[in-house]
Structures are given as C-alpha cells and as structure tokens.
C-alpha cells in the first residue's frame, strides 16, 4: 500500500481549490445556454487546442497507454503518430471549416443540417449512451485504483471525484471544462515528468533501455531483441510483433479507419474546436493540439517500457498485482511506477496528475453529453425553440444545468454497473466503438460529395454498425474464453490477438458503410437544394481567402510543421 504524507495531500488540496475556483469565477458569465453549452464560441486557439488534447488524455488513456507500453513497447506509439496525427491534420484543414462554418452546435446537429432528422436522432442517442458509459467506466477504474493502491474508500473516491467534476462543470459549463482542461494538461505533463526522468536514468537512458531489453528472458520468447523499441521494423508479419498485426492492418485499421473515425467525428473532441473564437482559430485548434500530442508517448509509454525491465529484474523490487489467471494487471503500471520512483512531495504531484487526467476526461464527457442532450434530444423532440430567443436561452441554460447533474448521476450508476458486470460494460464499449467508423464514412461523404442523400446516410450509418456487429459475432481473438470477446454467433475466423480483431471490425464497418451510402445515394433522391448545402459541402462552399499576416499562423504551415516532426519521430523509432 502506498502511503501519502501531509505534503502530498496539501498539493492535492491546492489543486482542488484552483479547479473549483475557475468554475466559481466563470459562474457570472453563464447567462444563457450558448455561454454554458458552447462556451460562447469565444476560446482562443491555444486554449481550445490544449483542451482538445487534454480531454483525450483521460485516466483510461494514461493508465491504458503506459500499460500498453509494458505489453507492446514502442508499438503503442502507433496510437499517437500514425493513429492520431494524420487524422488531426485532416480534421483541421478539411473538416473544421465545415463544422465551424455550418454554425452547427454539435456533430449530430451537423448531420441534421447536412442530411435529415433521423440521421441526427440515431447519432445523438447512440452518442449520449456511449458517453455516459465511457465516463462511468473511467470513474470505476479510478476509484478502484485509489482503493487498492492508496486504501481510499471506494465509494468515497467515486462520489468525491464525481462531485468535484460536477461542481465546476455545473458552475461554468463548457468554458469551465475547457479552462480546467488546460490547467490539467500542465499538471499531467509536469506531474509525470519526474517519472520519465528517473525511470530513464535508472536504466541508463534510451541506449541502456535497449540493452536491458535485449537481455535474454526479458522479452517474451519468439520476438527479436529490438521489438519493444521499434515501431514498424517487425510489422512485416503478424507473428513478429506483440500486437499481432501486419503493417497494412496498422496503416488502414488504426491509421485510417479507427483514427479518422475517432478524431474527426467524436463530438467530445470536435466540441473543443467548435468553441474557438473564429473559424481561423477553429482550424488551428487540432494543429495546436497535435504538437504536444506527438510527445505524449515519451511521457507515458516510455516509463511503461522501463516497467517491463523492472518487472523481469527481481532485484528491483518492482511488482504489479496479478489477476485470477496470473496475468499482470497492466493498468496498474503507471501507479506502480509512481510508487517505485517518487518520494513524498513529488509523489503527491504524480497522484494529482492522475486525478487531473481523470477529471479532464470526465468533464469532457459531461460537457459533450450536456450539449447533445439539450440541443439534439431535448430541443428537437421534447421542447422545440420558440420565437423568444432570450427566454429560450434561459430555459435551455436551466436544462443544461439540470442535465449536468443528471449526467453525473447516470455516470455514477454506470460506474457501479461496471463494477458488478465488468464484462458486459467492456462488451457495450466494444459495440459502441463500432459507431465511429460508419459515422466517419457518412460525414466524409457528406462533406465532399454533394449528391449524398439523407436516406443513404441513415442506412450507411446503421448498416455499417450492423456489419461491425456481425463481424464481431463471427470472429474471435485467440484464447478468448467469453462470448463478450466475439464469436457469439459462430466462429468463422480466429485472430491472433484482440487488437487485430478490433482493427478489422473497424475496416469492415467503414467499407460497408461507404458501399451502402454510395449505392443508396444513386437510388434515392437528393432532397436538399444546393443553396441549403452551402457551407456544408466542399464543392458548394465559396473559397474564402483569409489573409493571415504571420507565417506561423497559417494553417498549412502549422500542418506542415506537425507533419514533418511526426515523420522525423517515426523515422527515429522505425
């Protein structure tokens, strides 16, 4: 058990005061629904950009990715460089102009403007359910971690962390979530920094780490000695790397379908860019976010790789708890490392960093849920807007506030369900992850092909999802022992590992969605006129020549810098 001293609690306490203080200061600005749910579209690009990346850096991401560092080594970096950067550049240059320019307040609302009501409804409801589940699962994971490592009471951790997030999102809405995400971003980076420095010092730097990993017996049998420190070198054959995927599976599954599906359509992420103060700022948001994103692997994956060396060296005294079947609990990697290296003082800072990552992820979920519920479900189906704009603004502000409370309570309920039926929650999360790939297909076709019709989009969205379900039901990863992992219809194919199955599920979902949408578009009539589609479709939107004075503010220049740095990093760790 990890013992914290008064100084560690003092750091945590100061952090809580600042988080709540930011919410308190913003309270007086919350005059209508737009201020509360859209941050009044007033965020500077750098603030929204850091929030963009911070909300993605939730507790599950930090815990999961450092665990994956131990499990897969530098291959995990595929989730960052190939699996995020190209999609972020694409979102910035090609999609943000339409998301922002359409004046849509959410991704489902964009679907309504571009297609029709039923497409919006389907997406809004699935998104709302998925967001609550995701926030419940991460809340459960955090409370469990705090319980088993710090000995804090499970219920207390759960309710207290939820109460703090509720307090600052209730007070300041999306603005409060965004400003706090910026603060949290810096705490996560600075709080985990000593871990990177000390763990690398311990093994003798990157070169020393490579040598340690090459020692026989450290890596699982059958892998080349540099498998854990390279990204692409061993992806020629699925059996050559621990992820069990070939390079083309990574390139298309992760690099294209999964990453574009996540970064370009997930409202949780896109909402940050939509809150920017201008279209030019909105375009810059994902690019500014991409800069720190590229370096996060060094912060959380590299220490995870060091953990593998420590784990194999009995003299280090480093251990991970094991589960019922004797496998290490990979999610505990980061906290076990904090415990191993950090003395009282910076230890409090490290724990605060974990709490901050949890809060940034959860506040993101809550604020996105809020907006989708209030605008896309409540305003569309329960109480439509009236002619009185001012009264409406007040009314939907109240609804947004109440939704914040209800959303947090539902998340808490989901956390308890996750504790009781962990398998079912994992299963549901797998299922909901299947909506992203078809959603990307439909939004992409909608933005770049003016012919795409609403009926086709609806069927494409639903059909892609059903194909993904069928694929999951008909295939199974090697060694899976529950039907939650797949094969619940019958097994016609076996994948070497679960990740390969996920990649291929997404590829099937995306391809079938494209085929269905394109095919049906030719069979159905376009009901929207060109005038209605202006600002929503590439070919119907007049080019604006925005003159940007400073070279470093030009989106193309920023995108090129991001692209070059990412390429250099990839070559360095090839």
């Amino acid at each position, binding site marked *: 058990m990890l013992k914290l001293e008064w*100084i560690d609690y*003092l*750091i945590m306490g*100061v*952090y809580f005061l*600042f988080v709540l*203080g*930011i919410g308190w*200061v*913003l309270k007086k*600005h919350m005059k209508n629904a737009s*201020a509360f749910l859209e*941050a*009044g579209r*007033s*965020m500077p690009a750098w*603030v929204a950009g850091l929030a963009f990346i911070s909300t993605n850096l939730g507790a599950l991401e930090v815990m999961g990715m450092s665990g994956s560092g131990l499990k897969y080594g530098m291959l995990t970096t595929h989730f960052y460089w190939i699996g995020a950067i190209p999609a972020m550049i694409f979102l910035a240059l090609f999609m943000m102009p339409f998301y922002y320019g359409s004046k849509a307040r959410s991704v489902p609302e964009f679907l309504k403007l571009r297609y029709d009501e039923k497409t919006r409804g389907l997406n809004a409801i699935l998104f709302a359910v998925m967001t609550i589940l995701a926030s419940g699962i991460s809340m459960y994971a955090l409370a469990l971690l705090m319980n088993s490592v710090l000995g804090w009471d499970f219920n207390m951790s759960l309710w207290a962390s939820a109460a703090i997030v509720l307090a600052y999102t209730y007070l300041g809405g999306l*603005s409060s979530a965004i*400003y706090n995400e*910026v*603060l949290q971003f*810096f705490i996560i980076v*600075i709080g985990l*920094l*000593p871990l990177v*420095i*000390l763990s690398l*010092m*311990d093994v003798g730097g990157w070169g020393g780490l490579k040598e340690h990993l090459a020692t026989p017996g450290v890596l699982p049998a059958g892998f080349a000695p540099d498998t854990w420190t390279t990204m692409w070198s061993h992806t020629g054959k699925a059996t050559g790397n621990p992820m069990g995927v070939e390079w083309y599976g990574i390139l298309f599954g992760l690099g294209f379908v999964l990453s574009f599906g996540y970064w370009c359509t997930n409202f949780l992420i896109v909402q940050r860019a939509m809150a920017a103060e201008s279209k030019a700022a909105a375009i810059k948001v994902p690019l500014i976010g991409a800069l720190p994103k590229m370096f996060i692997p060094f912060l959380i994956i590299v220490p995870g790789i060091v953990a593998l060396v420590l784990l194999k060296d009995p003299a280090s005294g480093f251990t991970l708890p094991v589960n019922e079947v004797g496998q290490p609990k990979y999610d505990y990697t980061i906290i076990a490392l904090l415990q*191993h*290296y*950090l*003395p*009282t*003082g*910076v230890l409090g*800072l490290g724990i605060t960093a974990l709490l901050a990552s949890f809060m940034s992820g959860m506040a993101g979920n809550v604020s996105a849920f809020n907006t989708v519920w209030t605008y896309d479900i409540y305003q569309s189906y329960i109480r439509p807007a009236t002619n009185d704009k001012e009264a409406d603004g007040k009314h939907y502000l109240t609804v947004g506030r109440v939704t914040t409370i209800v959303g947090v309570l539902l998340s808490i309920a989901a956390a308890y369900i996750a504790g009781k039926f962990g398998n079912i929650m994992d299963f549901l999360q797998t299922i909901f992850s299947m909506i992203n790939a078809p959603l990307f297909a439909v939004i992409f076709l909608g933005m770049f092909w003016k012919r795409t019709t609403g009926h086709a989009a609806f069927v494409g969205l639903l059909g892609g999802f059903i194909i993904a379900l069928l694929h999951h039901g008909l295939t199974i990863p090697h060694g899976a022992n529950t039907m939650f992992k797949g094969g619940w219809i019958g097994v016609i194919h076996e994948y070497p590992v679960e990740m390969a199955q996920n990649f291929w599920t997404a590829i099937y979902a995306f391809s079938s969605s494209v085929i269905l949408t394109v095919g049906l578009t030719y069979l159905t009539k376009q009901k929207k006129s060109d005038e209605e589609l202006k600002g929503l479709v590439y070919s119907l939107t007049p080019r604006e020549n925005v003159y940007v004075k400073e070279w470093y503010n030009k989106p193309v220049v920023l995108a090129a810098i991001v692209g070059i740095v990412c390429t250099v990093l990839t070559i360095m760790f090839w």
Partner: protein
Amino acid sequence: MGLDIRIPIGLMFSIFGVIITLYGFFTKANTELYNRSLHVNINIWMGVIMLVFGIFMLLLVKLAKKPKE
C-alpha cells in the same frame, strides 16, 4: 469569457514550486526518502522547475497587458 487562464496556472505552479522546493530543502538530509529517486533530491529539482514555469506564465500575462496601457 473574462478569464486569462494563464493567471491561475501561473499562481498554482508558483505555489506548488514554493511548497515542493521548501519540502525538498528541509528533507535534504533524509537519505532514506530519496533512495527511491536514485538519490536525487527530485523535490528541489521539480520545485524549481515549477516555480520558474509559474513565474513565466505570470510574466506572460504582465507582458501581454503592457502595450494596451
């Protein structure tokens, strides 16, 4: 939206910096405490880094305000 986020960030890290540096200074002789961190007094190091970062953020705010006066 009426809030310069650099102010709370600057203040918070300055406070963290002072607390952690002082703690590192007073526990300098405690070798047992710093066994974990490879005998490096990581508290003083991180404390100074945070203090510098915090002051830098506050300076940015000050510099941004000046031209308007």
